[in-house]
């Protein structure tokens, strides 16, 4: 069966520090991968999506970046965090022929 792993679950980082969140998927190949951010009391904002290794599309301009070094690995990064980067970050995968998306448990990031 397919599983998605996202870590860490919580993270507190100072302003200006770097960020690296990792997401891995097991049990499937060539998935579509997504990074979302959810601010408190808000909906999910699509940040990045990837349809294949090395293929990254950004939905909104920000100081975040994403990479997909392997088929089932998706990384969200930042060189210098801002206070506004605080939020709940969710990784999701979706099969090529399946419109249902599966989400990880999320990372609660607090920038202080």
């Amino acid at each position, binding site marked *: 069966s397919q599983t998605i792993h996202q870590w860490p679950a919580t993270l507190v980082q100072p302003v200006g520090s770097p960020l690296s969140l990792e997401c891995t998927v097991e049990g499937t190949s060539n998935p*579509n991968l*997504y990074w*979302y951010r959810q601010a408190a*009391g*808000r*909906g*999910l*904002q*699509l940040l990045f*999506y990837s*349809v294949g290794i090395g293929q990254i*599309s950004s939905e909104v301009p920000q100081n975040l970046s994403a990479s997909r070094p392997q088929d089932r690995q998706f990384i969200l990064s930042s060189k210098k965090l801002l206070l506004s980067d605080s939020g*709940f970050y*969710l990784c*999701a995968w*979706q*099969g*090529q*022929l*399946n*419109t*249902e*998306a*599966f*989400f*990880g*448990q*999320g990372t*609660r990031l607090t920038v202080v």
Partner: protein
Amino acid sequence: LAKTTQPISMDSYEGQEVNITCSHNNIATNDYITWYQQFPSQGPRFIIQGYKTKVTNEVASLFIPADRKSSTLSLPRVSLSDTAVYYCLVGGYSGGYQKVTFGIGTKLQVIP
């Protein structure tokens, strides 16, 4: 892009049937309608998906009129554990969520 509109919040007593309606006037021919459930500090979880008419699974029913400009998620006999945010999404055809937006959803509060 098909935009969705749903009530911000709803209250219901335990044991009642809950119907949450979503409007999507600009739905495209190839768009699916999908509903997700999200508990606090967790990733969204797929509930049900449909294209037209009625779809039923062990959790919910989805009613879609012929014009497909709206849809209704029906939760039978809700319990306290159904308290969550429910998202209506439109799109996702051909396996991609690249242009699918999660709105703020409907916050359902089940009252004992």
